[in-house]
């Protein structure tokens, strides 16, 4: 069993990163780890870039991930995957939602959206897993569950049983949306596995 790890979740305010972080941290706690989860609230959330640090291990002191030490990253938005580059470990895994949300300088025509985000990541030797979380969530019947699709994709890389994730999601999602969310999770997990992500017990 993996002894410890650093997971970075990043994206744009309003994408459900907080909920995904909370589910993830709860699962890691249930799997027997000490966990710390850190993010910033307030002004930073108004459409700005959002990042959540999750660290797990036997005993975790610092809530913050150091540059160059994030093992696995999930970027909920395409461009954001580049913003946190200095945090990634050499050869680390980056799961990237291919959805684009234009930052205001791009929307107003003052800057342009980079065309080659995935290539830039892969060119640095990172293991890149692009995923159309929005599309997969729609297939599962709940467009708003893109965050759970991404959590599913991430779960394939973590030392925690699939059952723990499903239990935790069941506990967090209202009954009406439960089945669609679990379906979204499974589809996300499946996409990671078929993409080459390995499942570790």
């Amino acid at each position, binding site marked *: 069993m993996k002894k410890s790890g650093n997971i970075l979740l990043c994206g744009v305010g309003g994408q459900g990163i907080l909920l995904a972080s909370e589910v993830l941290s709860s699962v890691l*706690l249930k799997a027997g780890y000490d966990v710390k989860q850190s993010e910033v609230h307030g002004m*930073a959330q108004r459409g*700005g870039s959002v990042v959540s640090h999750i660290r797990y291990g036997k005993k975790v002191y*610092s809530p913050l991930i*150091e540059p160059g030490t994030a093992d696995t990253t999930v970027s909920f938005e395409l461009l954001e995957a580049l913003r946190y580059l200095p945090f990634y470990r050499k050869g680390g895994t980056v799961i990237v939602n291919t959805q684009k949300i234009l*930052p205001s300088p791009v929307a*107003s025509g003052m800057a*342009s959206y980079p065309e080659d985000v995935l290539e*830039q990541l892969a060119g640095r030797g990172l293991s890149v897993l692009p995923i159309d979380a929005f599309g997969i969530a729609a297939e599962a019947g709940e467009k708003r569950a893109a965050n759970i699709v991404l959590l599913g994709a991430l779960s394939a890389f973590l030392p925690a049983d699939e059952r723990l994730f499903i239990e935790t999601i069941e506990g967090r999602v209202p009954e009406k949306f439960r089945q669609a969310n679990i379906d979204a999770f499974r589809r996300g997990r499946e996409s990671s596995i078929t993409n080459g992500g390995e499942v570790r017990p």
Partner: protein
Amino acid sequence: MKTSKTDTDKILLSGNEALALGAFEAGVKVAAAYPGTPSTEILENLSGYEGVYTEWAPNEKVALEVALGAAFAGVRALATMKHVGLNVAADPLFTSAYTGVRGGLVIVVADDPDMHSSQNEQDSRNYAFAAKVPMVEPSDSAEAKDLLKAAYRISEEFDTPVLLRTSTRVSHVKGVVTKGKAEKPAVKPGIEKMPEKFVMLPANARKRRVEIALRMERLKEFCETFTGNRIEWGDRERGFITSGASYLYVKEVFPKASVLKLGMVWPLPERMIRSFTEKVDEVVIVEELDPFLELHIRAMGISCRGKDLVPAIGELNPAIVRQSITGEKAEGVFEPVQIPMRPPNLCPGCPHRGIFYAISKLGVFVTGDIGCYTLAALKPLSAMDTCVCMGAGIGNAHGMAKALGNDGLGKIVAVIGDSTFFHSGITGLIDIVFNRGNSTVVILDNRTTGMTGHQPHPASGVTITGDPTVAIDIEGLCRAVGVKHVRTVNPHDTEECGKVLKEELQRAEPSVIITKAPCVLLPEMKRRKDKKLYVVVSEKCTGCRSCLRLGCPAIEWAPLTEEEAKQRGYKPKQKGFSRINAVLCDGCGQCAPLCKFRAIVASGEEDEEIR
């Protein structure tokens, strides 16, 4: 409130959630606060527990006075606030040190190093020293709960208010907490007249001043054996003295070093510090912000290192701690790449955007305030010229008007949010009326405290627990303090806003303009079904970019090459066209009148829909 529960007693809580649980377990009966990042969630969570009265007070001074009153009545009481809130509450804080308490009183103050969501950086430990009250400082969620409970015992045993300091990385970090048992405080609630203790006339206050000195001596003795202060022995070459989040970074980077961990940062355990420092070769103090521990430890005649190594500005983290002490630069594997910034912005459909757009067209000087609307200072609106503290915009406008006399008339406008107005804007408005001012004040009534996550305020009509209450009439209130010209406008109607602004700014008398439209993030606004989205009829768009001046996240600029422009039937020189992102559009309609070519229309009314 939301907690991430597990099957066992171990749960994951943020520092703020843990403080709420701690307050509940400590038997707190009354808790008051004004919302402020990073402190807000303490009271929000506590309001979900049975048997605790909670309230959003209009400001932190009132919150502390309410909590102190509850402590006078013999119950355990809590006031929570952000660092700048303690400035507002400093008046009752300093004298509450004199009166002491009956039931325990704890004031939680959350510092925001690095100013993630604040206008300044303050080290609240200085208040403990200045107000002569003890202060405890947790490093994580588990300690937050334990130290809060300890703080109540200290408060009652030593008859003093106690400060508990957190920072962003304690308040907003989730960690593992074990649920404990609820305590039953020993003090009995009731009315007890104790004028020599509670009435701070000079004759009484002089006696209480001496009492504070004696209390501090007893506390100094107490903290020598207080379990929150502990030595973790390791290598003796270097000994760290640290507290709060800094302790976590020291342990992360130097797991084998000796550490004196302070859970109580005022007063300091001098004997413990001496015995620790005598047994290590070099003493390094690692603390966020001011050299607080360093100054007081140096004053004991102990030589140490501290701010000569560790930065006094901004947040610390493991990389900074490592680099400051070992010189080893903790760089990532990959260099950052240049990509477009993603600054925070007013939401699509935000009513503030409309009024600020109207203000931006007038070219006036805008004395601003604290809230979501401070974002109007950013491009392209650039419609705010000052932002100092809660309520400052009104006094600033009046002061500028007095300084400039007739030359200033019509050129200055004060803008303040509704919650901020109740917090500390009313007194500024009274000053304008009282002292024959002529300023125009715009009050942005969006029915809620937006930036901190929608806490009700005195004009919202509900309390923290959602119970209905009187919604104070802002217009009536302004008239009651003597403002003769009070007008209410719809901020989404930018033309009307512009007209009313011009009229009121020219008046040589005080005036108030209230913009009334709810925050679009309020649940009832999110749920509304009658939303009519707007679209750009692409063939009518001339690429003039007028609509982009609103800075609405839903309006996007699509650049075109000459070839593409031709293909789309535009003039070859047209550099692009605007489009509205249907996912983001909230249907406020502010953009439609901005387009001279009538290319922006409500969905369904266009000649041709574009995507």
